[in-house]
């Protein structure tokens, strides 16, 4: 592949040392993801998918090994630098949405822009535009508690994409959705990936979802055990 590698992990290890038990959640993961690729990670519960996402996106630190994002080693960045990097270049979709319940849908979506110091008016305009793309224009003023699970997930996706990130990390973005909504969401992600060459790393249990990825990685016991080309 002649394309530029945007995410590269080398011999990544993660050991959790909470309390009496030690969990070796990543056991030497090597991974390179070129810009614009859509990668699906699959595997049984507890195999280390979320851990991989967290460590590779800089939300968590590796125990050993290295991760480079756009050529820069995460371990060389301090917390503030990582935060700043996330606000400009990354977007996150969580399994449990994690919207701020006290903010309206539009306020939730525009928050990353405000963090990146985009002027308030422009931020609001972009936020509404993205809500439009996820077909929630008329729900902009609603608080998350007033939205259905699928609607909340779409707000979360809008929030992840609003700052036009280079990389989107999605942890089971369709886990709580019915197959129809799930297909809609995937359509959206695929389209954005294609149109703006965003790199998309998504964790899923759903074969229909993973079938739309360029590449499927299967994990077991903290290691990538199988790789399938798809698309």
């Amino acid at each position: 592949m002649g394309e530029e590698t945007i995410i590269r992990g080398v011999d990544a290890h993660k050991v959790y040392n909470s309390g009496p038990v030690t969990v070796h959640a990543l056991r030497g993961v090597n991974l390179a993801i070129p810009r614009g690729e859509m990668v699906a990670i699959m595997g049984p519960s507890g195999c280390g998918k979320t851990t991989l996402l967290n460590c590779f996106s800089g939300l968590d630190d590796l125990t050993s090994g290295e991760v480079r994002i756009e050529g820069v080693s995460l371990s060389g960045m301090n917390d503030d630098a990582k935060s700043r990097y996330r606000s400009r270049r990354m977007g996150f979709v969580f399994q449990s949405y994690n919207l701020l319940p006290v903010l309206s849908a539009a306020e939730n979506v525009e928050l990353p822009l405000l963090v990146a110091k985009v002027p308030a008016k422009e931020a609001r305009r972009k936020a509404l535009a993205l809500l439009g793309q996820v077909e929630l224009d008329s729900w902009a003023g609603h608080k998350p508690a007033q939205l259905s699970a699928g609607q909340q997930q779409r707000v979360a996706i809008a929030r992840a994409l609003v700052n036009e990130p280079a990389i989107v990390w999605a942890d089971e973005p369709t886990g709580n959705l019915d197959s129809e909504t799930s297909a809609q969401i995937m359509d959206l992600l695929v389209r954005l990936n294609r149109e703006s060459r965003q790199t998309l790393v998504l964790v899923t249990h759903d074969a229909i979802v993973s079938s739309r990825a360029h590449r499927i990685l299967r994990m077991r016991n903290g290691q990538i055990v199988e790789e399938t080309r798809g698309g």
Partner: protein
Amino acid sequence: MGLPEDAALAVLAGIGLAAIVLLARPLLARLAARNIRRRASRVLIVVAGLLVGTAVISSSLVVGDTLRYIFLEDVYVRFGAVDEVVSNEFSGQLLSFPESHFEGIATDLTAAGSPVDGVAPTLLKVMPVRNVVGNKGNQQITVMGLNASHESAFGPLTGLDGGALDTDALGPTEVFANERAAAELNVTLGQELTLFYGTTNQTLVHATVAAVVRGAGTGSYERRAILFMDLRRAQAAFNESGAINVIRVSNVGGVADGVALTDRVTQDLRLSIATRHLALRVQDVKSEAVAQAVQVGRDATELFLVMGAFGILAGVLLIVNIFVMLAEERKPELGVARALGFLRRDLLTTFALEGTFYAVLAAALGAFAGLGLGYVMVYFFDRLVPHGDVPVTFHFDPASVVTAFVAGAALTWVTILIASWRVSRLNIVRAIRDLPQPATSERSRGFLAAGILVALGGAALTAWGFSRDTGMGRIPGPPVLGIGLGLVAVSRGWARVGLTLASAFNLAWILLPFGLLNQATDSVSIAFVMTGMILVGSAILITVFNVSEALRALLRAAGHGSGRPVLTTAVSYPMEKRFRTGMTVAMFALILFMVTLISMVQGLQASSIGTFVEQQSGGYDVIAYTTSYGEIPNFRTILQGNFTNDTFLGGWNGVSSASVLPAKVQAVDGNRSYDYTLWGVDNFLIRSNRYGFTSFLPSFVNESTGAREDLTTRESVWLSLRYNHTLAIVDRSAAGPNQFTPDEDRLRIVPGTRIRALDADGRAVNLTVVGVLEQALQFTSGVFVDQEVVQTVFPAQEQYTAYFFQMSPGTDIGAFRANLERVFFTYGLQTIDIREEIGQAFDASQQVLTLMEAYLGMGLLVGIAGLAVITMRAVVERRTQIGALRAIGFTRRMVLSVFLLEIALIAVLGVGIGVALGIVFAYKIWAVYFADIIRFSVPWDRLLLIIGLASVAAIASTAQPAIQASRLPPAEALRYIE
């Protein structure tokens, strides 16, 4: 007291009930126990928050206990075995009577079988005494003539070596000196004393000190400095043969328990006096003093309770807050429990069980914490407040601690029960999904009914208040009516408008400058607490319903910068949780309101002290007076021989005098007379004083010309005394209630009132009041007339003299006083420095106010505990949200800022509301009651200090969980499932 017993029963019943439930429903008990165990640190905060109310109650009681104890001990020192005193007292002077009266009364008591074990004749005189060798003197030495054969029941005088002493054993010119007299005269055994006795023609008595007696029992009678003589010898020395002026009576029983027989003995004494037609009066001195001591204790408790009431109230809010929060936190789990088939009753029980545990633990700790707080108060009271000879020792009645425990537990428990009941009424589905409970039509009907009921109640209160002329109805009536109407508006869906309008009306009702109180009959304490609650409650309602709108508008206007996302997030949380925010803001506001008020009082006092001193002194720096001698012969000649005229302002004209007569004064058409001092002022005083008037007559008739002259200036009113000897000026203490003399039974005089002044023998003079002074005077209170009036109507031996000095600037007043007292020592001349006296009183009262502020500052702990609980809760409840914020790109500092801003917002609102209300309310009080006496000012420096301290404390107490939250690694935060 009835309350604690009822409350104790209630609390016992509650604990019993809890025990029964524990046994009958072990599953519920296990659930409750698990909830308690789940977060030990939380329990700590909950209990710490809950115990504050109890601590306030307990410390109030303990402070009262201590004061009562101190004053009781003082009473026992002052009176020893003496329970009653028989004398003929006139305006503070003891008139003599034949010793045969004593024998008659003693005989009657024996015949009546009265429970007394001692009756003793006494001749008690106060006079200047000088120690010749030691060259030290004191103008106020008491000389007591005792008859040793009647003294056994009062305990013997004891020497410093512990041996019993007897006045019978004294040689012809010997006396015993008690410890205090020995110290004040610097006298040792065998030294000779000169006693200056007499009001007109002085008799010199020489005496030698035979022994120093201990200051205990009779040796410390009324804590005086005493020389003891044999009664016969005293009678001879002071030209009072066959006469005494005090009969001391001791009831059967000890120093403390003899009081129980006072009623019986007093009755027997009165009967004896009446049947023998004696001009004597019985005073049950000890029981009166005991009652006073008890009252002082009770007043102190009430004062601390009233001030602490806002702390207690804040504590109640804290309890509600904590429990609603605990409930919120468990909402999903409660919902699941309901879905699994738990009855609402079971949930309530589980919650109440948990609450009972907290209530009992917190009340117990609070009662003891109050003990410590009380000790601290007493300690500072001892250090800061002058209290003369009375030693201050901490003392408490164990019953007080129990009372505080019971009251605190009851208070906590009831609050918890109500909170639990609310919590248990959850909708299952919404509880599981953690959604807010919706408004239903059932609920709006409830609001309507409640609104109408409350409004009716308010209307009734208002009507009652106005018809009965009482603030107890006028203060809360219209606000309750307003809130009722507001609730009706809520039921129609106009919550914001309705409650905002109602609250604004309430604020106006309380704060507009007209008086609602009936000063004669209303309890100021209750009115005050009520007023504070209405004010703070209304302000909170307005805030809660409007601040989010206001802030959002502000945000929209604010710039873009990196603060923007932080600000939006920080503001959104408290505004989403209105109830929680309102409660927390209220806690701060309640306490800051009270602290601000006190500091306003302090500031007003400080800013008006200058004017106050001027008005009190009438322009005089030093006042000198004799109490044991009439007019000092050749006073001015002696003065001129010893001082130079540049000592005084305006030379010798700066020295004035007044003939003083202790008199009874009554309104001519009234039949009650009161003790007042009649000041016959000389021409110098009339012309040099600077006392001003609140009111005076428009004109008077000049007696020498027969012409009516207008009175226009202060000076002309004073001069009118000179030209018309039927005129009098009174100070404000004779004109109804004021800052020194609350609404007691007193003369109520206005210009034009006709009064009569009488002496002990019925000599009288009728006077017309021409003016009322602007101040109630502390040192020269009374009725002022021309000097000639006093001198012609009343005999010289009844009079004393007061001298007034205006000093040249830069004079050493202390040295002048010392010289003056030395020169006129034999006349018993005493001096006061008015500025210094008032200054000391001022300092003491400022100190007490500071102490009060500090006490209330403890209440701030409630608010701070409240904030800490909220923050801890927020950190837990927002853990995954914090993770999301971090993922979006919030830095640690931004997350920390969100929390701190949020806390600051709540603290600023609470502090701001409290301080603002305190200032405005103080202004109202000033405008209604004190505008004519003092000037209004706001002590900004003090207030800023308070605001600063409160804010720093708020931030400091919450910083820890906030920092913890910001340090949370994002992955960790996101993963968290509660």
